[in-house]
């Protein structure tokens, strides 16, 4: 893959505090977050972040509370200024933008969905959804037409004239998503957009997002602290710890080959059968005798059901119509046990 990334972060550092630049060299020399706080009373937000986000993909940034996820996403539209490093959007250096340039970037290239919804309480659902267009100076008719189109799309038809406080949390977040979609920007930033919702509505919203992404192909940066959510949505997964990237890559790969005990911890208690897919455990095609054909994207759970638990079977793996590999049920069962990078149990 040699295509230009839509957004890239290069050597990004963020230290919270008055003398951030003066003490940057300590962090670059490897001082830990605790030591920095004790010795210099500055909080380490991010250290040496290098991430490329491809156009049309969902990049999920995951980490525990306080790992710097919100700090990272707020650098993309410069709600927070970095201490050092580069932020490139479409190859353009965001740090070099003037105030008007930055405003135009925020208006035309990026929209954001917030954990706490952050809707305007004194505006109706329709006005909230049309906010981005109104800020750009579009006339009311255009704003309303676009806004009601997207409200419709997220399933809020009929609520246009309600106020946010009259809606449930899930509905408010739909308004938040409609607001971001109405902005019609290439890039969507979502900071724990679904964390405040209960599990059922959350699954709903995840499906809605995937469905929308299917047709819109936006570049989405999604923050979460929930691994299941991350695995469900991610094309590219970035795992943060104490402000640094511990591992990034294709989610199935991270699951199969965790590079760090921290990540093993993370991945140890998810339902691997449901998350892992055939493509992650298949072998190159060599055999000729198969019990049947399966798709690259089937998850392991459905394979176990299909084989009736028989571990001696072999299947041919298909990508559409083309055979691409073979699946041994024995490998599949082994893959269900988390592999430990350190070796000991």
């Amino acid at each position, binding site marked *: 893959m040699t295509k230009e990334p839509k957004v890239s972060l290069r050597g990004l550092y963020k230290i919270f505090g008055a003398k951030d630049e003066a003490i940057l060299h300590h962090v670059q020399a490897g001082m830990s977050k605790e030591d920095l706080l004790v010795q210099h009373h500055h909080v380490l937000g991010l250290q040496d972040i290098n991430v490329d986000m491809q156009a049309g993909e969902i990049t999920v940034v995951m980490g525990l509370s306080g790992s710097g996820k919100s700090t990272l996403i707020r650098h993309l*539209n410069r*709600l927070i200024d970095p201490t050092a490093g580069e932020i490139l959007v479409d190859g353009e250096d965001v740090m070099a933008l003037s105030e008007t340039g*930055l*405003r*135009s*970037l*925020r*208006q*035309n290239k*990026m*929209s*954001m969905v*917030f954990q*706490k*919804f*952050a*809707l*305007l*309480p*004194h505006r109706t659902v329709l006005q909230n959804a049309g*906010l*981005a267009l109104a*800020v*750009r100076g579009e006339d009311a008719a255009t704003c309303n037409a676009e806004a009601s189109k997207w409200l419709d799309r997220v399933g809020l038809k009929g609520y246009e004239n309600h*106020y946010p*406080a*009259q809606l449930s949390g899930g509905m408010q977040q739909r308004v938040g998503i409609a607001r971001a979609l109405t*902005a019609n920007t290439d890039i969507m*930033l979502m900071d724990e957009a679904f964390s405040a919702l209960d599990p059922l509505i959350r699954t709903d919203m995840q499906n809605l997002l995937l469905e929308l992404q299917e047709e819109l192909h936006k570049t989405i940066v999604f923050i979460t602290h929930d691994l299941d959510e991350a695995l469900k949505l991610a094309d590219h997964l970035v795992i943060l710890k104490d402000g640094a990237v511990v591992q990034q890559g294709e989610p199935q790969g991270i699951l199969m080959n965790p590079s760090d005990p921290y990540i093993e911890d993370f991945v140890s208690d998810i339902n691997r059968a449901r998350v892992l897919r055939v493509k992650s455990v298949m072998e190159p095609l060599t055999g000729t005798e198969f019990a049947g054909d399966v798709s690259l994207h089937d998850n392991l759970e459905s394979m176990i059901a299909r084989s009736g638990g028989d571990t001696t079977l072999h299947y041919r793996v298909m990508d559409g119509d083309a055979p691409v590999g073979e699946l041994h049920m024995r490998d599949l069962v082994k893959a269900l046990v988390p592999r430990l990078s350190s070796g000991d149990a």
Partner: protein
Amino acid sequence: MAFYDGLFKVLGLSDWCGAGASNAPMSMADLLAQNTGEETKGEFFPFPSLDNLNESCSGIIQSRDVTKGIENGFLAAKPALKSVLDPITQPLSWLLDGALWTFATIPWFIMVPILVAISYYASRSKAVTGFVLFSILLLGLVDHYDVAMQTLSIIFVCTGISVLLGVPIGIAMSKSDRLQRSVVPVLDLLQTLPTFVYLIPLIFLFSVTESKLYGIAIILYAIVPVVRLTDLGIRLVDKDVIEAANAFGMNARQKLVKVELPLALPNIMAGINQTIMMSLAMVVIASLVSAPGLGVNVLRGIRNLELGVGIVAGIGIVLLAVILDRVSKAALSRVDMTHVKH
């Protein structure tokens, strides 16, 4: 022989003091003592006040010189101050006189419906509107309609100006911590000074016949809450909503008009309610410096011991206070309703 003679001798200041005997005018106490015929013995150990020290050393000024000095300072600065302040504040006199004239000229059968309409528009409450009508009619019945209207017109003008000046000051304060730090002590001062104290420098600067004299006194006193609550209201606006406004690329003006002011409105309205109530309090006191209205009757009640006159005017003031408070509170709760909180 005064108590502190020894002290100055020890300090070797006798020469500077001017050879003991003071030729300064006698203090009031001395004068009284002289009249009663007995030489002042003085206390055993008098406080080293200016007057007492002066008795031993005429080089030291007397307290009356201090007050005299302040007065002279004021008088010296007066022409300069006046030449600046007079033109700036002149429109206030016109506004006040104009409002007084308007309220007096419009006949009651037009004025009363207008007032009732205003209170209905502001409060959208039949009960409040009914109470307003009842109170005005009651005031009219006891022949206090005219004075009540005078008071009301002064309040309208002064509250209007307070809001016009106070809201922008509050906005500016909320945007700049430095400005806030320097304005807050001034507001504290304005709020803690006893109301009578305002009047003293103003009487020096302006003549008592000018309406702006009491206008300024009322505005200075009443502007404080609207400034404070505008500042507070804007600072209290949800940070998440402001962040969203920034993330969608609003500029400072859009943020102020579309987000901050609407969300701060309940607080600003609470400030305006306080401002109205404080104008009313001050307009009564300002009758000491020729502000017309119900306060004049209260003053008459006090001066001439006309109990009835004073009490009727007092009840009139209470009625006005309740009307103004109810109407502005009802308007406030209406504003609150439009952004229902969870």
